[in-house]
């Protein structure tokens, strides 16, 4: 009786048997099954190797650099003259350039980005939000070289027409344009943070007779503050690493100054300048690339870790 299935199969085709046969000839299959995870692990490891690779490359060459130029001189030197016979390597001009351009960018991106986020999250109707957000995303997707072109051919001449002392290349214009570029990032991350504040909290405040502004400013923003700050920190990290806008629009003078109407060089622009010109291996100039890149890497790494830490540590507990 129990044989009925088998009998029936014998008439036409017996899949069970075919499968059994195939199984025997398929030790290959087992092999793949064991091999695949290893291959995939290897692939995943590449991402790790990349980071390690970056760090190791930077570190070894940076060490070579510090054999030529004392550590202290590099980080306290206000003079940077990388070319010629009497080269001097002080990174402070680049640091101030980077920090000032970042500051200008954040002075634009933080208020405008935050206000945009508030408008989208608290004031705009669903329809308006749906229409505006993709437009902001376009702004975020424009290549930085285009912003560089815009800064150089439009914003700088515009600014010069009402800031008389503004030099043809200056840190102000690329700083502002960088800020514009970062607005969408700050806006969308902050908006995410504010949207995740539960409505119950808004209702609680509204029921006390608070105006929308008071609800936003005293309840929603404080509740979303960690997400908002994380968006600022990521924006800062982005500004520090931004290259083409400053390369094109800020010139390459290595002045140690705090005057935003002047040309300054950032760490990123220095790297582009030096690799674009001479970078013959083995020279101090060549190693200086790595020292600067390392400094840049450490800066942005700290910012990224900080952002991760803030959003993890201060995750809202409502």
């Amino acid at each position, binding site marked *: 009786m129990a044989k009925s299935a088998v009998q029936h199969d014998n008439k036409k085709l017996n899949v069970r048997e075919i499968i059994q046969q195939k199984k025997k000839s398929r030790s290959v*299959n087992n092999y793949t*099954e064991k091999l695949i*995870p290893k*291959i*995939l692990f290897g*692939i*995943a*490891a*590449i*991402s790790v190797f*990349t*980071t390690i690779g*970056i760090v190791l*490359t930077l570190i070894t*060459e940076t060490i070579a650099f510090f054999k030529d130029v004392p550590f202290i001189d590099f980080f306290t030197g206000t003079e940077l003259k990388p070319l010629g016979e009497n080269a001097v390597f002080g990174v402070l001009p680049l640091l101030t350039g980077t920090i000032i351009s970042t500051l200008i960018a954040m002075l634009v991106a933080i208020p*405008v980005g935050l*206000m*945009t986020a508030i*408008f989208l999250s608290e*004031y*705009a109707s669903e329809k308006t939000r749906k229409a*505006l957000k993709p*437009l902001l995303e*376009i*702004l975020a*997707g*424009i*290549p930085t*070289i*285009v912003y*560089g*072109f*815009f800064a*150089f051919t*439009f914003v700088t001449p515009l600014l010069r027409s009402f800031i008389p002392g503004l030099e043809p290349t200056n840190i102000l214009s690329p700083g502002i344009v960088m800020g*514009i570029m970062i*607005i969408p990032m700050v*806006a969308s991350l902050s908006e995410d943070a504010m949207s995740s504040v539960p409505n119950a909290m808004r209702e609680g405040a509204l029921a006390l*007779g608070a*105006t*929308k*502004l*008071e609800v936003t400013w005293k309840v929603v923003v404080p509740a979303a503050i960690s997400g908002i700050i994380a968006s600022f920190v*990521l924006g800062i*990290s982005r500004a520090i*690493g931004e*290259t*083409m806008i400053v390369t094109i629009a800020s010139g390459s003078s290595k002045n140690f100054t705090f005057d935003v109407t002047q040309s300054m060089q950032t760490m*990123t622009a220095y*790297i*582009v300048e030096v690799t*674009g010109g001479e*970078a013959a291996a083995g020279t101090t100039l060549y190693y200086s*690339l790595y020292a600067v*890149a390392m400094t*840049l*890497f450490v800066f*942005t*790494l700290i910012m*990224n870790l900080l952002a991760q830490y803030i959003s993890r540590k201060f995750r809202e507990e409502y």
Partner: protein
Amino acid sequence: MKYVDSEQVHKKMGSRLLANNLAKTLFFMATLFGLVVLIVLIYRVLADGLGWINMDFLMNRLSTDPERAGIWGAITGTLWLMLVVAPVTMILGVGTAIYLEEYAAKGRISSFIKTNISNLAGVPSVVFGILGLTVFARALDLGSVVLAGGLTMALLVLPVVVVASQEAIRAVPQFLREASYGMGATKWQTIKNVVLPAALPGILTGVILALSRAIGETAPLVVIGIPALLIPVPDGIFDKFTILPVQIYYWTIDSALVAEYANLAAATIVILLIVLFAMNSIAILIRNKFQKRF
């Protein structure tokens, strides 16, 4: 005793509501600010560049003479670059995502890899350029050819693909996996035949977004080294090349010498933006088309 004097509250309410309305206007203007810049930027680029776009501009090789200069070399270079970036990020990105989502025990190693990937996403692109210069162009002695640029760019956009693929794989419902296992399928068979096909739209969206990021990047390739004048059109991955953003870069800085170069740069920007817009539209189409599958 009454602390809250409703008369007072009522009186002040007017100014509080005014403040609210002012703030609302201000917030709205801030939102418009970004959009106004977008419009100005696009208008400027179109005004400067549109008149320069024609068949010759697209199909001509580079020239120092603005009247004859074209971007065929940069277009071809961009395509070759993508031909390297696409498969490399696909394999690395999707492979990593599969490993993390399907194989890795949720322990130290996987969280270490994850942290790494999110940090990789924050490394400035110019630093990737240095890596590419040191490792691919110099140590592997490839020179500043398509392959070296492509590998550099692939690593740069890797996190985008990994994260998108992870999300896509995670979104594949468990019941599909169970159905496959229930048939006696092995893990890899299940992944290959069920999980990946179902996650494909999400993965593709991620890949397209990564490519559109790669298409717009300038700094790493400038660092690797692209000659200011390169007329030949690349024929393969071992040729020197230039790409649209780098061409824009050179024309922008050289516009001080030859004013028309600014127009060429703007025209190239128009082409680049069209390409990016098309890619993003495709990504959105894919996302919408396959969104509600399960």
